[in-house]
């Protein structure tokens, strides 16, 4: 009984512990069984562990906390918990769509799944903590796992090259982030963002040191969320990485970075004359330049890299309008946009991962032809996701964009509203281009039976979840908004 009592204060750490143990279990299974087990069994292990984690997340009621260590380091609020839930669910979906792909690519490395779960652990730490130490550790655990995952294929030099570029840039930017942490610590004496905020608000504190710290901190995190001047790594890494990891990068990794940026902006709200206008300009360039660059790409993966950059710009618009106007605007806007974007992207990459060739990660537009003939469901998913990204009214993407736009108008961020409308208009063209290519019927194309052979249970499941999330979202939404009283 005593032992149980000792563990009680730490029960809220269960979601994290389960995710960590999942990674360890996969390595142990690999050690015991060698290469006898098929990849699907490791995928199932990961899914089971993550479902346990989700369950423990839902049962955590914020009742008993350890006020000495636990609360200050890892204490997800209800918003953070929703984000954690989305991230865990999306990782499960990615896993379900990945095992067939890995078999096709001849990646016989179960370590893939343990790295994937540890990367998710890092992302969870970034979301759940308000302590700069834990956020930094989360960033590093996420990035170091992703460096390896990006370069996991051993036939493709592009993959290693992408991993290497990501590593150098990521290492550089984590040093910048740390420099910011050191200044914030040096001039406030704490790593705790809540305490920093308290000091800034109560003491009317603005000394140069903390402004420098803020600039470095934001730079480091905006790199992770690939905002305009720090986006140069994005298309290369997306193109070189295996399709599954591209999917992970544009969903879970991006969501975690956004959440960290959000916490930072909330903390440094009183210093907004330092960061607000540069930040607004960065978001404008992210959206407009991102769509222009996406428009000229010849490779679908590179196009999607810029498309995810643009969507990141929309997310930041939502975050900024919430931060500017905390009293009147609801957090659910961000949650809805993030959820719909994540689930749509997962469905999209799930279909695309059946289309890449065995020996190359490139995906020119011509390779999309004939999809309709081989997989009706895949074609339908792509069309729905693309229409949702464009923002065709009944679909989820429209709702997300509409809510963010109305929030931005409420917080009187007109430059962002205009930039967002322009970038949506440009984005229509390149999304429709994809729709055109997947619907094209080229007689000479020979994709063989490849796509047909890859329709696994996971493939169907991910497609169905993605479609239903996008289609049902507007109807569930009313319920959401009623709860939050908007």
């Amino acid at each position, binding site marked *: 009984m005593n032992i149980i009592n000792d563990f009680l204060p730490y029960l809220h750490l269960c979601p994290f512990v389960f995710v960590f143990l999942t990674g360890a279990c996969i390595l142990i299974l690999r050690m015991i069984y060698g290469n006898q087990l098929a990849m699907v069994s490791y995928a199932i292990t990961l899914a089971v562990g993550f479902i346990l984690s989700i369950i423990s997340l839902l049962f955590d009621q914020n009742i008993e906390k350890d006020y000495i260590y636990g609360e*200050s380091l890892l204490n997800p609020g209800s918003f953070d918990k929703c984000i954690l839930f989305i991230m865990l669910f999306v990782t499960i979906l990615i896993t379900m769509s990945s095992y067939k792909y890995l078999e096709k690519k001849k990646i016989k490395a179960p370590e893939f799944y343990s790295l994937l779960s540890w990367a998710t652990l890092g992302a969870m730490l970034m979301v759940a903590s308000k*302590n700069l*130490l834990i956020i*930094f*550790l989360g960033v*590093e655990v996420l990035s*170091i796992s992703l*460096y*390896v995952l990006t*370069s996991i294929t*051993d036939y493709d*030099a*592009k993959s*290693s*090259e*992408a*991993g*290497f*570029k990501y*590593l*150098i840039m990521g*290492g*550089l930017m*984590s*040093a*910048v982030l*740390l*420099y910011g*942490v*050191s*200044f914030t*610590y*040096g*001039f*406030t*004496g*704490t*790593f*705790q963002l809540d*305490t920093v905020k*308290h*000091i800034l608000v*109560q*003491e009317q*504190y603005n*000394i140069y*040191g903390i402004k420098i710290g803020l600039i470095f901190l934001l730079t480091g995190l905006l790199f992770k969320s690939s905002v305009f001047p720090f986006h*140069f*790594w*994005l*298309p*290369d890494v997306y*193109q*070189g990485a295996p399709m599954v990891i591209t999917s992970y990068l544009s969903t879970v990794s991006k969501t975690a970075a956004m959440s960290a940026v959000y916490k930072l902006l909330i903390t440094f709200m009183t210093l907004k004359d330092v960061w607000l206008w540069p930040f607004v300009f960065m978001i404008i360039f992210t959206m407009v330049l991102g769509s222009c660059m996406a428009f000229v790409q010849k490779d679908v993966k590179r196009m999607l890299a810029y498309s995810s950059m643009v969507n990141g710009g929309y997310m930041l618009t939502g975050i900024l309008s919430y931060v500017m106007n905390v009293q009147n605007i609801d957090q659910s806007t961000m949650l809805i946009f993030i959820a719909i974007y994540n689930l749509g992207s997962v469905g999209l990459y799930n279909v695309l991962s059946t289309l890449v060739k065995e020996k190359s990660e490139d995906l020119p537009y011509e390779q999309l032809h004939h999809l309709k003939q081989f997989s009706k469901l895949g074609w339908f998913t792509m069309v729905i996701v693309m229409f949702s990204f464009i923002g065709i009214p009944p679909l989820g993407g429209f709702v997300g964009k509409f809510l963010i736009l109305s929030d931005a108008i409420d917080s009187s961020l007109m430059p962002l509203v205009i930039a967002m409308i322009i970038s949506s208009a440009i984005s229509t063209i390149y999304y429709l281009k994809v729709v055109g290519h997947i619907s094209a019927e080229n007689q000479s194309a020979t994709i063989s039976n490849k796509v047909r052979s890859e329709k696994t249970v996971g493939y169907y499941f991910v497609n169905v979840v993605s479609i239903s999330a996008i289609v049902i979202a507007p109807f569930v939404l009313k319920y959401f908004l009623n709860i939050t009283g908007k």
Partner: protein
Amino acid sequence: MIPLSHYLILSSVLFFIGLLGVLTKRNPVIMFMCIEMMLNAVNLSFVAFTRYKPWESLGFSMIPIEQDNGQIFVLFIMTVAAAEVAVGLGLVMAIFRKKQIVTTDDQTLTSLKG
């Protein structure tokens, strides 16, 4: 006693030398060394800040609790730096096996054009 500003100036000089090095050098190993230098510059400033505690003289009404210690952060940074370099050297080896040359100039690492 040497004042805090000396340490901070030294650490910022080291940091920006490292930054310049990463941005201008073309040899992966040198680039890793520069990143290490930046991280160590950060370590230096952490240690100096923890030793001098400049926030104590600022007279906050709410004194931060002494549970966040910058010197512990330094240990984490060193661990993370080691992990990063381990992954990085592994990657350099992988690239070397495929291409037989390791420099980041136009022959090797330019098949992806960002």
